[in-house]
């Protein structure tokens, strides 16, 4: 081992990473392999969709929070309007997030969606409408998470930029003011 190399950053939250990948992988694997073992569409449907729903919940509530410090949800305010809320850690903590963790988070999210898309294309080619239903449900759950987290990340960046420009403006103002009072 090269002693001058900095130590490679390990996963900061291996358990969370495991769960993040586990349900996605299980849903995909079950769907693909089930054709070999089960003849019943109902079982395939229910188990796959259940695993996909569990994965959706885990990503949204647990791994999003822990691996990338983001969270999104929808609320209905007092006026009866639907409001999407985004929440993120402050910029320091975001910068301090483990790079491997967030890399894993985003890439598995994208890869899973791409995998379901490919499987969907296969089902479409074979004119299997009922399997297309399963794929459609799983794909929409994945895409919902991707969209939610992407919006959350953009919102966090925007907030930080706003805050940074505000800070610069206020500091500039106070500097100018103190300069004038000294003069």
């Amino acid at each position, binding site marked *: 081992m090269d002693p001058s190399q900095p130590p490679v950053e390990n996963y900061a939250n291996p358990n969370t990473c495991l769960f993040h990948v586990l349900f996605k992988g299980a849903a995909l694997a079950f769907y693909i392999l089930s054709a070999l073992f089960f003849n019943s569409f109902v079982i395939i449907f229910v188990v796959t969709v259940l695993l996909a729903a569990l994965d959706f919940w885990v990503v949204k509530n647990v791994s999003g929070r822990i691996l990338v410090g983001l969270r999104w949800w929808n609320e209905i305010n007092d006026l009866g*309007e639907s409001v999407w809320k985004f929440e993120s850690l402050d*910029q320091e903590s975001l910068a301090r997030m483990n790079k491997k963790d967030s890399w894993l988070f985003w890439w598995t999210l994208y890869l899973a969606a791409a995998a379901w898309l490919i499987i969907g294309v296969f089902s479409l080619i074979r004119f299997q409408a009922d399997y297309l239903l399963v794929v459609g449900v799983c794909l929409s759950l994945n895409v919902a998470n991707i969209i939610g987290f992407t919006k959350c990340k953009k919102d966090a960046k925007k907030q930080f930029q706003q805050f940074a420009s505000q800070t610069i403006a206020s500091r500039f103002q106070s500097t100018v003011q103190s300069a004038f009072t000294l003069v």
Partner: protein
Amino acid sequence: MSHNDTIPLYQSSQSDIDEIENMMNGGLQSGPGTVLPARPPSPIRPSIPVSSSPFVQSNLPPLPPSSSSVPAPPSLPPAVNFGSSEGSKTIGFGSPPNTLTEPVWDTVKRDLSRIVSNLKLVVFPNPNREDPGKALRDWDLWGPFFFIVFLGLTLSWSASVKKSEVFAVAFALLAAGAVILTLNVLLLGGHIIFFQSLSLLGYCLFPLDVGAVICMLKDNVILKMIVVTVTLAWSSWAAYPFMSAAVNPRRKALALYPVFLMYVSVGFLIIAID
């Protein structure tokens, strides 16, 4: 979870965050009294960098409890979100919890209790039905998901042939039906939120679920018809105030009739399965 009982329903999403942060901050407990609809986040969560404050607080060292006396920053009231369909705020929350199991279990319990409370609101008689908009304030799609899958499974189990197709048809019919019914209300100029309506229509399937289970257990045709009629009436009664409140009074029938029609068709499915 006990303090969630005292929080009004429309805040339970907010209480999600509060719970997680309470757990993360250990002893820094913010009681239910501090979870207000006006939502002043910074005093309750000591680690939040507020965009109006000049300094970014690192969220790792917890602030002393005296931070609860700091007045709420003006930048983050929900009033900002009036009139906009997509509002966004940034609130930093505390460092992630050390153990994964504890908060996950609490999140699960919270979601389950939300399902139960939504079910009680929609399907059973209670005073909140007078104000439909407020009742399903924190909609969730887990309940409807379980009910639709359960109904599909029950129908599929009762069927002696073509089980897979029965399940697929039931699921697709219910899911697509809920979406189309919601679009119907929206196109009639009604004011309803898409997911809220999906959630409502899903929860109203609960009586039909019960009916389907009874019909599965007893195979008498007369009994089936009676059971289905009763549960059908119950489902329609459950859906009525929410749907009718959403549209113009002159168009109430136009909005309600398709809902009733869908439940009738599901009822026929239940009776006709052998």
